[in-house]
């Protein structure tokens, strides 16, 4: 006799996003498409109170619950999240699996005594989910089909049947409890066959002829006449070291200390397999069930614990432990055979790979201090550049075709000028007390404020001139304003940059 728990998570897609305590009055729905119709796919409690149900047209939902926040539904993300939740459920039994799209299934045969009995296990499971803000209904029965039906259609949020007692209670449940496709359910409904009891003792052949083998299969599964094993999730088979902490870790020293111990344990495992790590993943399971990860890439396979520990420790500051870390897992997610060998002086010279250098530099000075410049599609000089990570691509943006100064002053510095308004460059200007006569000039280049950014830029104009003084030094100066209309700026002059 097996014992199976089915967990039903009716609001999984939305609760996965918004933890339960994030404002009970916040109205949130997820929206998806049903053909061309935009429909609500999930709702939170506040919206449900307003009468919105999943499946309702978005337009109707918005009339019912004004001020609704809408986020796009993400079924792939839901599925992925459920798979992760199943990994978490492995704490109860090695046989846990996601029951897509809205539940979990756990085979707890022989596992319950570790938790003080079945009742205690189910209670613990539901409490932990509830703490995480996830509404769960759970049922324990002799087989997966019955547990699935009872989790969804039993009157109580948790429902435990005694061993050998699953069958009779099913008879009064609607056929919808049988995990049947909508089409078959509609067909049964139209014939007046609404409860499992209507089908349980009916002749098999006529039903199978009309509804195919699936109906009988589901009936047999529900009554335990055929086996339905749980295909448990398992972490990929890789070398790993893990440690649980009854008292969650928050102090950085403690994290560093335990990280070092994990590295040693893992390296010992690697040594037995004659393998070296090319990549290390360090997972931090927080008490709020968030999992954070650090990834360390290595240029060559290694099993040298002190060095690996140092590299990892240097990056621990990236991790926010929140209310504490309850589990650390170190996994060598990419390994290669490890052999000690001499450096080959005659190897072909490959294109230099900057990555290891950048790894090292980033570990020393901090990744945020390491950057390169990329163009931004903006005519406003201050906004025409941005910093990107050293190896990030330029993303197809091109540098402007006209000359731009090698250096910009931030902020631009005021200058005193002699200029003919509105079209001409200054005859001379004084910057930091030095007067310079303008020998050559080009302009104006007229740049408008980016009106969508700030009110001050709605009508703002700058007229830029490239000027060259008698010594051949080139400057980028501008007038705030178009030289005619005071709404466009103060008409004062500024020096903004130098050409090389």
């Amino acid at each position, binding site marked *: 006799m097996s014992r199976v728990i089915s967990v039903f998570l009716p609001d999984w897609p939305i609760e996965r996003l918004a933890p339960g305590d994030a404002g009970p009055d916040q109205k949130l729905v997820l929206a998806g498409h049903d053909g061309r119709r935009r429909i609500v796919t999930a709702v939170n409690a506040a919206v449900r109170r307003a009468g919105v149900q999943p499946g309702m047209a978005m337009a109707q939902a918005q009339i019912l619950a004004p001020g609704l926040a809408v986020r796009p539904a993400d079924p792939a993300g839901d599925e992925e999240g459920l798979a992760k939740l199943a990994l978490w459920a492995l704490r109860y039994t090695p046989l846990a699996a996601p029951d897509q799209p809205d539940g979990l299934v756990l085979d707890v045969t022989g596992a319950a005594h570790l938790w003080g009995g079945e009742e205690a296990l189910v209670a613990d499971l539901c409490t932990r989910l509830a703490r995480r803000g996830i509404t769960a209904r759970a049922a324990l029965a002799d087989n997966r089909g019955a547990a699935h039906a009872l989790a969804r259609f039993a009157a109580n949020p948790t429902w435990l049947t005694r061993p050998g007692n699953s069958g009779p209670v099913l008879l009064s449940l609607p056929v919808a409890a049988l995990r049947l496709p909508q089409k078959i359910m509609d067909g049964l409904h139209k014939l007046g066959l609404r409860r499992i009891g209507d089908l349980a003792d009916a002749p098999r052949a006529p039903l199978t002829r009309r509804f195919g083998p699936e109906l009988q299969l589901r009936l047999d599964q529900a009554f335990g006449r055929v086996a339905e094993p749980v295909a448990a999730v398992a972490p990929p088979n890789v070398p790993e070291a893990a440690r649980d902490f009854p008292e969650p870790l928050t102090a950085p020293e403690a994290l560093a200390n335990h990280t070092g111990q994990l590295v040693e344990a893992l390296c010992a495992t690697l040594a037995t397999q004659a393998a070296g790590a090319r990549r290390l993943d360090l997972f931090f399971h927080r008490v709020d069930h968030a999992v954070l990860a650090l990834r360390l890439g290595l240029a060559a396979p290694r099993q040298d614990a002190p060095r690996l520990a140092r590299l990892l420790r240097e990056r621990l500051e990236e991790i926010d432990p929140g209310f504490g870390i309850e589990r650390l897992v170190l996994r060598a997610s990419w390994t290669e055979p490890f052999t000690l060998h001499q450096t080959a002086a005659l190897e072909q010279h490959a294109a230099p790979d900057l990555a290891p250098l950048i790894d090292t530099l980033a570990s020393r000075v901090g990744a945020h201090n390491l950057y390169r410049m990329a163009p931004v599609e903006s005519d406003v000089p201050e906004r025409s550049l941005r910093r990107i990570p050293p190896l990030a691509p330029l993303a197809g943006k091109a540098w402007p075709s006209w000359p731009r100064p090698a250096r910009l002053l931030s902020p631009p510095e005021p200058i005193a000028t002699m200029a003919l308004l509105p079209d001409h460059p200054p005859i001379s200007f004084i910057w930091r007390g030095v007067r310079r006569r303008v020998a050559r000039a080009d302009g104006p280049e007229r740049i408008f404020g980016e009106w969508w950014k700030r*009110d001050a830029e709605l009508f703002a104009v700058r007229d830029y001139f490239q000027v060259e003084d008698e010594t051949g030094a080139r400057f980028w100066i501008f007038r705030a304003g178009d030289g005619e209309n005071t709404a466009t700026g103060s008409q004062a002059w500024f020096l903004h940059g130098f050409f090389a």
Partner: protein
Amino acid sequence: MNYAELQVTTHFSFLRGASAPEELFEEAARLGISALGIVDHGSLAGIVQAHVAAKAHGVRLVVGARVDVAEGAVLLLYPTDRAAYARLCRLLSVGKARGGKGQCVLGWADMATHAEGMLAVLVPDEADDACRHNLEQIAAFFPGRAYLALTLRRRPGDALRLHRISTSAVEAGVPTIVTNDVLFHASERRILQDVVTCIREGCTIDEAGFRRERHADRYLKPPMEMRRLFARYPEALARTQEILERCRFSLDELCYQYPEESPNPQQRLEELTWEGAAARFPDGVPADVTAMLRHELGLIGRMGYAAYFLTVHSIVRYARSQGILCQGRGSAANSAVCYVLGITAIDPVRSNLLFERFISEERREPPDIDVDFEHERRETVLQWVFDHYGRDRAALCAVVTRYRARGALRDAGKALGLTEDVVAALNSQVSHWSRTAVDEAQAAELGFNAGDRRLRLALELARQLIGTPRHLSQHPGGFVLTRDRLDELVPIEPAAMENRQVIEWDKDDINALGFMKVDCLALGMLSCLKRSLDMLAESKGLRLGLADIPTEDQATYEMIRHADTIGVFQIESRAQMSMLPRLKPKTFYDLVIEVAIVRPGPIQGDMVHPYLRRREGKEKVEYPSPALEKVLKKTLGVPLFQEQAMQVAMVAGGFSANEADALRRAMATFKNTGTIGNFRDKLVGGMIANGYAQEFAERTFAQLEGFGSYGFPESHAASFALLAYASSWLKCHHPEIFCAALLNSQPMGFYAPAQIVRDARDHGVEVRPVCLNASRWDCTLEKAGERFAVRLGLRMVKGLANAHAAALLAARGETPFSSPENAWRRAGMPVEALLHLAEADAFGPSLGLQRRQALWALRGLNDVPLPLFAQAQTNEPGMPLPPLSAGGEVLADYASAGLSLRAHPVSFLRGKLCREGIASCGDVHRAKDGAFLEVAGLILVRQRPGSAEGVLFVTLEDETGIANLVVWPDVFEAHRRTIITSRLLAARGRVQREGEVVHLVVRTLRDLSVALDAVGEMDAPELRVHSRDFR
């Protein structure tokens, strides 16, 4: 200093230009610019509006277009004369045919063949090899007529760039001109231009980057400033005047020719008229008709409209030859000539309509006749017109699709990065057709932070965007027909629908140029009438046309007066029905008024109540002046028709006919800012000057404002009234035929099949259920003793495809099916399709199989033959199926056919409702005014008309009839969820009785839908326990 700006893009270069032609010419006049050259991208769509605006502001228009040559050059083309203009139109037509919808694809080779008489201006990028190559090309294709544009971009190296380009031009021997590449009329429009760019590119302003226009200062600049900016190129500035001299072409030269129907159209029209008159009046043409015909023919002759009438006549004659029902309407349609020619069925003598009032000799605008055809067969007529007049001489008008409030906020909001839900919430405050956007106060009411910058900008820009053209689409049926090649008058493009082509101009443009337009529109009611008349001939041997329906039938008017008009054309809406008992129509003209009065125009202008009071004799009929008495006598001193509104402006406000027309148009266009104020001052001022009281003048203007957008012209009202009368007559005397025809024409009108069938049964019509062995696809008539019963057709069965039904009927022939399996084997249709029939209980009437039994039997059949199963089938064990309760049968009927002939679902709940003290809908109608009661029913309609200040009208239905609820906004807000989600609704409130019209003004509401679900389990309609008397 003279300067002409020759590179101006209007907002007819969709989502590029940001100003209307009117704005551009107004600004040009203000700045002292002598002429504008309008060059939209591959299009002349804005040129007529530019022509009108140019005249209004005294600035010359140079007609032109911008063409992007596929090999990589931008040209501005200006025709010098009419012949060159024809070539430009043909060139653009070629490009559009090649490029498809909205695109214009042309190459140098096309320039070569169309260049004659055209000036070309090359718009260069940099002074590079491409520029030099293009200069050579243009100099070769346009010898002596080629120019190069010098334009400041306000980018680095501008001066050098101009110098190099100018040098290249000198080398190539091509003279230069100055342009400013204008995209909007004034600098502040730059922001809107950025927004339309974002809309075009489908990005937000933050993502737009360099997709925004980067060259600065794209607005009109005064000549002095241009001279200052181009001080080094005085000759290029002066040359703008040279182009002005050379391009003398004006749209005034377009001379429109009617298609030739006959060498002597007037004579031919007169012949046809007298022939037609003799046919219409077999007992001799009455003297007054003869006089009227003579008079009209004289007028038509003087105006030269004979050819137009002949064209409409030949289209109508074709439709008639195909047995397609049609009916004319519009200004010229209500003439005796149109009556005898068979274009309309309204006897002008009877209807008291004067042709002359619709055709003004003074205005000289072309007559306007719209013809409505059966909606399912109109395409036949359209294709005949294309073929008969030739595809190079006939095309459909365009419709300029402009931004309305919702679309403007949606697109502006998207461009500014507002999320979809914010935009949707804001738009929920705006009705679909509204032209006024959401304002900050409304946004604040919705709980948005009105101070939020992005939100504020979005609202402001959406307001600016309203009225901006979005794209061209095809007019539903407005034909332009010409004698000469149409593509030499205006560019033509292929339409999205196959076998149709569309010109670039809309109906206002056509009007402005005096082109002829015939509207061939589709009308569902004509299909219904056609079906009715056919059935009438077939079943009762009564052969009638629209014009032969007995006129002034008092039984019909009696029925109309009781608002017994479900299904009837136009006067079936709730608003119309509540007006009928008050207006009490007795003659045809009363119907004309009825149709016109229940419109947003008269309602918003507050004309309904004064008219009713005067009609009932409760208020004295008086006229502010004798002149207005002439205009308003027919409608008791209250303007009800659009023409009257215009005439009031002319007679009392001193408007000329053209000004009155301009006023109507200004009110009808979307952007009623600015210009409307001028009209207001002029009208009110004019009326005061003519001795009218200020208060009266103000009220008159308010009335006209209501009309502008929603008024009904009398001639249209008359044509619609005729259809309303014809359908009422059928409903009154042949309700079974009308019911069947209406069901066969669904979807149309306000009511669902359930209400139509119920109404017919209330009138004593026997309706028989869908039957496997008796129904055809359409609903049909079956002999029932002396009378006829309606047999519901297979078309009522939800989910059943027409093709499957046809297979079934073909297999049935004369031999009825004997079992579900027999039907399946003989018809060779999928089991799935037969299941739909079983769900609709179609196996019941002739085979006596209950719904579930038939479903069970059918499900046992398999489309893929399995011989073993086929044998097993004969001796399979029986399956006990629970029987369907009576309530369940009714709900299943509704689910499968949308109606039930058994009982009303609410009847099953009557006992329960009575115990709760809830009255029936019938009780509401018997209750006295002011009674307080609660009623429950299925929700038929929820309606919130724009003219009703947020009041929601809800119609409930139970087995005793319908009840009309009025829900004020505060009650709606309090019961929002109940109203929207309920199927069975209980409403408590006070009865309001006005004559025969009864409303329940709602105080509170309850959702009883749960009780409805229980109906499926119930076996018999509960008998009423006791009856409450509300009298």
